[in-house]
């Protein structure tokens, strides 16, 4: 469903992605981890062309992201994205956040968009907050609304860019639960996160990236966690650090 072939990206002279090749099949949950500065967020943002790249090819459901002729807004409307800082629109109510793009981008009727959006709001357990503004919600609630907003567009895949990194510890669980529900329902997901518990529970594959934007590991969850002896020294070092606590 998503295919990256030898993707490289530079900021001036600094290379931030180095020959990244991987693919995500329908229904797979791929967890991307690695130290900060390894290009995880950049990599995930190249998939819906929020970040341009200079070399390589990316295909999403057969459509070429690198092709200048591709209708990028249309492609993005089919791929959901959840951000580290939620990025709900603060000037719009929760319901308006859910319906805006459905109406303006997909051309749905406002009533239809509302029913559809509220269905997902209910699913993330926040129906009671439909008329509030994002600023009136906790971080965890905002992130769940953001997930519902992305789902309202009926995406073919979901990208998560460190969805729990900006949350207070007690709110991480509710967002992860929400994501696990999605994963069990068969949603195709790519998740940049350090939540190894999430990776172990619902992940299909794990990608480990190292500084310089290289993919160091790309293997099944079982292989990644059960056979540390097969991992690269950098991966072992990283896992030791984050699994210590």
């Amino acid at each position, binding site marked *: 469903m998503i295919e990256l072939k030898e993707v490289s990206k530079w900021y001036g002279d600094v290379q931030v992605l180095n020959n990244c090749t991987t693919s995500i099949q329908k229904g797979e949950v791929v967890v991307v981890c690695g130290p900060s500065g390894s290009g995880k967020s950049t990599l995930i943002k190249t998939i819906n062309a929020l970040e341009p790249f200079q070399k390589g090819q990316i295909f999403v459901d057969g459509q070429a992201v690198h092709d200048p002729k591709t209708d990028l807004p*249309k492609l993005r409307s089919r791929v959901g994205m959840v951000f580290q800082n939620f990025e709900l*629109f603060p000037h719009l109510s929760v319901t308006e956040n859910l319906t805006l793009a459905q109406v303006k981008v997909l051309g749905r009727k406002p009533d239809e968009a509302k029913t559809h959006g509220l269905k997902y709001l209910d699913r993330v357990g926040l129906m009671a907050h439909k008329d509030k503004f994002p*600023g009136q919600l906790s971080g965890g609630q905002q992130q769940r609304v953001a997930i519902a907003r992305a789902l309202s567009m009926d995406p073919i895949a979901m990208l998560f860019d460190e969805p729990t990194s900006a949350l207070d510890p007690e709110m991480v669980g509710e967002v992860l639960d929400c994501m696990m529900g999605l994963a069990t329902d068969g949603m195709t997901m790519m998740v940049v996160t350090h939540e190894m518990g999430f990776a172990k529970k619902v992940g299909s594959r794990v990608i480990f990236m190292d500084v310089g934007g290289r993919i160091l590991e790309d293997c099944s969850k079982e292989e990644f966690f059960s056979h540390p002896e097969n991992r690269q020294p950098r991966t072992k070092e990283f896992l030791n650090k984050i699994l210590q606590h």
Partner: protein
Amino acid sequence: MFGLDLSFVNWDIISRFVIKGFIFSVQLTVVATLGGIIFGTLLALMRLSGKAILTVPATIYVNGMRSVPLVMVILWFFLLVPASFYSLIPGGSNYRAEISAVITFVAFEAAYFSEIMRAGIQSISRGQVNAGRALGMTYAQNMRLIILPQAFRNMVPILLTQTIILFQDTSLVYAIGAYDLLKGFTTAGKLYGRTEEAYLLAAVVYFVICFGLSFMVKRLNSRIAIIR
């Protein structure tokens, strides 16, 4: 006291001279604010477009306008635009100074409002831009639905403050003889031989209006802020 005599002031004078000028001053302020915001936003978008063909002319225009005293722009426009221009507007020939003032103010204020809107647009985080794009919105949709509404809200206090300054600046149309609030007082003062008193009253009226508006801006400011 100081030999001032305000006894000449009565309702008749106010209704005959002052009201007419006051109406024009307010009209000029309103039109220049709305026009300034519309053209200013366009100039701001041009400057932020990243395309030299748009940024260069917009930058030259804004910096040029902001480097010249307003009263000179008012005079130049009035003196350089031929009379035939005004005859294009129905009944325009009788209101040369007023029409000239409106156009000049819109053009001049657009430069100032564009700087305000530019700061407002830049105050919106990259993350918000990306969120709109990730939902499939085009550049124009993202601007119109996500960025400008927030930028505008963030900038309301400064926009209103600029409008108050603009209201004060409308008195500069005296240079071309347009009939504004100040001119209303001047005319009445001359007619009754009470020039000093008329100017003093004009100052009081400008002060009360502007001070009152500033006070309202402060109160509004706390009410409209986006909940974050």
